[in-house]
């Protein structure tokens, strides 16, 4: 007859207790004694004296065997349940991600984010086309007939924009009141909200993203066209040129990432829809990080630099052009030839 439950428990319980204690110590943040380094050519076996993390890994594997045996031999429930809890705890500990450090952040910024953006190039193209078309159509329409702006924006908002960029605008451009810090907070809230909506709306078969991006294009086109006809073009464009390098890029990126999600739902290829969606989310998560950071940069620039009325428009155009060049160079060129994406960040393919 095989081993009875009592014999089984008596024989292996010391190991379980040791693993439990080790996990408790880890939970309290006190790692055990440092493992002895293996000598050259030595392999770790059951007989190798080890401590700390290596010992826990060893105990975990043994407990997995015990659990499999206990289940197979239909040992009493409390025994199996104890082993289940123990292995689940150790499993969580052992397979925890250890790469929270700066290394992965560096890789994300240097390679993964721009590469993930480039991998989205066709979705980006579609979104950019929708955005630019919306701006152009409404912008030109407003330019020919300033009253057209009222079809997109209500009269109250038009008056507000007029106050922000028009003749009466004070030393701070682009706002009716409030100081730099207040506006920084407001811009973060407002712009991040818009971008997250563009991204999440993509789940609605991608149409949501296109609608959100197109709508924002309409607004921008209408206001730009209206202010140009009023003769406030310099004030307006010198205000937007610098931060728009980050803000418009971020909106387009969020739209493209959302479109990618919608695309995965609509045309999952050889995967199930859920699998395709999860893969798309994995592939676009560096892009999400990218547009999130860009929005914060944009909000800072918009609050502290773009609004400063005392800086000559020429300087702003120059700095703005540099920012646009920087964004394009980063997204277009950074990390080319580095093989980390998609094998590394893209996850399983």
């Amino acid at each position, binding site marked *: 007859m095989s081993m009875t439950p009592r014999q089984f428990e008596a024989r292996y319980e010391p190991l379980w207790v040791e693993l439990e204690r080790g996990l408790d110590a880890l939970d309290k943040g006190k790692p055990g004694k440092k493992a002895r380094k293996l000598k050259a050519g030595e392999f770790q076996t059951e007989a190798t004296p080890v401590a700390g993390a290596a010992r826990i890994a060893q105990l975990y594997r043994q407990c997995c065997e015990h659990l499999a045996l206990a289940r197979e031999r239909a040992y009493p429930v409390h025994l199996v349940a104890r082993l*289940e809890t123990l*292995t689940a705890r150790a499993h*969580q500990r052992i397979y925890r991600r250890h790469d*929270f450090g700066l290394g992965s952040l560096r890789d994300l910024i240097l390679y993964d984010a721009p590469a993930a953006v480039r991998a989205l190039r066709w979705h980006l193209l579609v979104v950019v086309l929708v955005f630019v078309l919306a701006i152009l159509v409404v912008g030109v329409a407003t330019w020919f007939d300033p009253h057209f702006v009222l079809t997109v924006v209500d009269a109250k908002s038009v008056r507000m924009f007029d106050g922000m960029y028009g003749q009466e605008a004070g030393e701070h451009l682009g706002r009716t009141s409030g100081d730099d*810090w207040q506006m920084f907070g*407001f811009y973060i*809230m407002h712009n991040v909200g818009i971008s997250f909506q563009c991204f999440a709306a993509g789940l609605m078969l991608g149409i949501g993203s296109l609608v959100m991006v197109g709508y924002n294009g309409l607004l921008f086109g209408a206001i730009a066209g209206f202010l140009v006809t009023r003769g406030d073009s310099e004030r307006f464009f010198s205000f937007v040129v610098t931060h728009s390098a980050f803000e418009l890029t971020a909106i387009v990126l969020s739209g493209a990432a959302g479109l990618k999600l919608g695309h995965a739902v609509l045309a999952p290829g050889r995967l199930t829809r859920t699998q395709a969606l999860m893969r798309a989310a994995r592939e676009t998560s560096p892009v999400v990080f990218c547009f999130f950071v860009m929005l914060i940069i944009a909000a800072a620039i918009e609050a502290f630099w773009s609004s400063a009325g005392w800086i000559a428009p020429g300087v702003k155009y120059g700095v703005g052009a540099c920012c646009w060049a920087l964004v394009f160079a980063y997204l277009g060129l950074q990390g080319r030839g580095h093989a980390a994406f998609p094998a590394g960040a893209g996850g399983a393919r």
Partner: protein
Amino acid sequence: MTLDTTLLAETPEGIAILLRPAGAVPRTLAYALDWFIRFIAFAIVAGVLSSVKGVGVGLMLIVYFGLEWLYPIVFELLPGSATPGKRALGLQVMMDTGLPVTPSAAVTRNLLRVADFMPVAFAFGLLAMLLRRDFKRLGDIVAGTLVVHAEQVRLAGALPQAEPLAPRMPLTRAQQVAILHLAGRARRLTSERVDELAALAETALPPPDYAPGRASPPPIRPGPRLLAVAQWLMGQR
């Protein structure tokens, strides 16, 4: 099809880990609790900052932004993988493989809360949770995460002590399992109920008047006799 809502996640070691996904009600309560905590935190910060003009309002908006978007992400990446609201209800976020939640998954599931919210009051998220066996909302589906009850339910404990007694006949494995399971739950039941249930196994239990090699006669009631057989099956002789 099983009635319970547990899920099995397989580990590289080839064993299955039992996960208990949390349903819409505890998750809604956890969300309400989190909302309340964030509200209080914001009220305190706003109270302090409202005395500062300009910078104060800006910082207030930044704090609001942080409470809205970063609060769940940060707490779900800390040890325990749960926001204070989830922790209070004993919930935990993990990957549907049973592993701790990864940073990108935590970010994805929390950003997509916007999609779950649509069209009003988390209607899509609630619908997804009600339609699925694993109670995932849209953000969970995309990120591959799962909200589970952190603690396992313990229905069975250690077997009550008893003098061992051999069964009347050799038992099949299924019969042994049934007897051991009932004995494991005996502490949670009244002795009358144990007797009732043990009476169903009367054919497997030794009769009260038959006890070779035993000092005292076996108990008359079927419950204690079943517990004695369970001890024998455990290996006590």
